[in-house]
């Protein structure tokens, strides 16, 4: 076990953690916005899958990673519109419609992949961009400042989402429709419009999360590429108690366990791989169990709003 804790390995492990945390951050921060407005979007994993394929396919055919990222975000946006239509306008049970969205994304991404690509292909993903001077700081530099642009973007998104939710009028409106839609409605806020906006914004971020998997982290697409990461991202929102900083903490904790698991296997420590793969899921359940800060839960979470009801 000595080799596992050498300096170079720890730096590598923490740098891997940054990359692994990236899709979780995009998806979970997006879900934070949606849930703050009162809508649980359980279809994040399906959005990530379809967007991951769209980004991969766009990058493969056009050679442009930025077009890939855009394609991922746009597909996410369209999926968000679909989710809003069913959950906000038609007031469906959100848990069920989210599962429908997941199954659609899972099946559709696999269908498109098999028809349009067929075999395993790879793309050259976003390269690491060392930040001058900062990248040369011992220990911290190689961990924090030698990453690809999508990774930097994910971490910068934490203060941005915090600022949007806490310091802007839009953020106030999103919170008000999540806490008390009837009151928000009575002061002239269009509840449905704010919820559409929040869900679509969150879904576009989930789309970027999927793109970051297929063209930045893994650089390929295959069936069920996410392996449930979208669901873990939803769990992180509960774990982070609907706060961007809490979500960041959860994403880092989760990714460090995952990164440790990967490095332990690479270094050939004798743990059955299935036990190692199981660890993050057990951690998620444990995390959900100890999350006690439910006071922050948006009061109207998971409740469709109908004018004149209650």
């Amino acid at each position: 076990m000595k080799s596992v804790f050498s300096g170079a390995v720890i730096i590598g492990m923490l740098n891997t953690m940054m990359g692994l945390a990236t899709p979780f951050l995009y998806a979970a921060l997006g879900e934070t916005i949606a849930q703050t407005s009162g809508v649980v979007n359980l279809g994040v994993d399906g959005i990530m899958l379809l967007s991951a394929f769209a980004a991969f396919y766009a990058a493969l055919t056009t050679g442009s990673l930025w077009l890939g990222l855009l394609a991922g975000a746009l597909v996410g946006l369209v999926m968000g519109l679909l989710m809003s239509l069913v959950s906000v306008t038609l007031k469906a049970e959100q848990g069920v419609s989210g599962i429908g969205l997941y199954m659609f994304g899972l099946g559709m991404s696999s269908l498109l992949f098999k028809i349009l690509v067929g075999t395993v292909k790879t793309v050259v993903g976003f390269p690491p961009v060392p930040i001058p001077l900062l990248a040369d700081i011992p220990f911290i530099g190689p961990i924090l400042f030698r990453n690809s642009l999508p990774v930097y973007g994910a971490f910068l998104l934490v203060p941005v989402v915090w600022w949007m939710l806490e310091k802007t009028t839009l953020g106030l409106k999103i919170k008000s429709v999540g806490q008390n839609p009837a009151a928000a409605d009575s002061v002239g806020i269009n509840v449905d419009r704010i919820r559409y906006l929040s869900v679509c914004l969150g879904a576009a971020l989930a789309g970027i999360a999927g793109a970051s998997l297929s063209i930045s982290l893994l650089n390929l697409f295959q069936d069920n590429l996410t392996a449930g990461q979208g669901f873990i991202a939803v769990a992180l929102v509960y774990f982070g108690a609907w706060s961007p900083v809490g979500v960041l903490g959860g994403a880092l904790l989760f990714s460090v366990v995952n990164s440790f698991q990967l490095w332990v296997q690479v270094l050939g420590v004798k743990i059955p791989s299935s036990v190692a793969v199981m660890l993050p899921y057990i951690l998620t359940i444990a995390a959900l169990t100890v999350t006690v800060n439910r006071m922050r839960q948006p009061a109207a979470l998971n409740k469709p709003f109908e004018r004149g009801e209650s």
Partner: protein
Amino acid sequence: MPPPRAARVAAVDWSRVALNVALPVVGVVFALLLGAVMLVILKANPLAAYAALVNGAVGTRFGITQTLVKATPLLLVGLGICIAFRANVINIGGEGQIIAGALMATWFPLFFHAWPGWLLIPATMIVGFLAGGFWGFIPGILKARLNVNEILSTIMLNAIALQFMNLLLQGPLMDPAGVAARTFLAQSAQLPHQVWLPRLVPRTLLHAGAIVAVLLAVVVYVFLWRTTIGYDIRAVGLNPDAARYSGINVPTFQALSLTLAGGFAGLAGVVEVIGVQHRLLEGLTSGYGFTGIVAALLGSLHPIGLIPASVLFGGLLVGADTMQRAVQVPSSLVDAILGLVVLFVSGSALWSRRWASRRRATEQTGQEEVA
């Protein structure tokens, strides 16, 4: 004074039944049409694809039996989903619970291989039910005691069960014959013959588990609508606050319904092992845990409505494989269609609710006029 029993039994609201049948059927047709549009865009022939699908599902005697073979686990999983959804808990853990039941249905007959079939088969079913029930009890008790969201915990438990099965198939449960032949296939040894469920039609895979599933559908119907516990479960789902005021322990009944849901999914795992495969192998769940949810929703969360819904989706799954072989349209098309069906059915609940409340309103005014 409550109305006499005969009056209550006779009071089937046929127009409501018609609506419950019509909406899902429209949903399936709508989803198939959207699927056809997708195929046209992808330059595949939707008519040829759907013809192959229908032909695969019901075109041959073997196809029909295969449809029923696939409908069996869907019906069993769906029965559990009915119970859970009726109590307003969402069980996404079918996959993990199927695995729990299948693991038990493999280990138990291998260990008690000397038992006669008449004892071993029911015993295996019971322990498989209990294993699945245990895997449903975990999220149930976590929800009841610690308010852990059951959707998330059941999804995590799916992943844990899958890895646990892989671990056992790589180790203690691996077929000794495979180890001896150095093939190391990730599958268990074949189960003793006396635990194999009898085949209903010779030279097909249709097994007695299908009959068990239909009988259990009737049992679940009686349980939900003719027993006190069933009444309490439905009361919890219809209006948790009212149930709480009337003295029902809401968390306990939600935990109970998740446990029962797990048990039925576990039983689905049992019949797959002792009815179809006769051993445990990777990919055994085939997504039944998710498709069972779709079937339950399409059957309006009613055990009897679930029977035709399961056959429909069993047929879709069988037909999807035929379609993939015959016209090279990937079977994942059906997964996408299933997702659309769920979106449509959950989205149409609003209309059915509004329709019901309008009807209640007119009925009340009608009664006032009579009075």
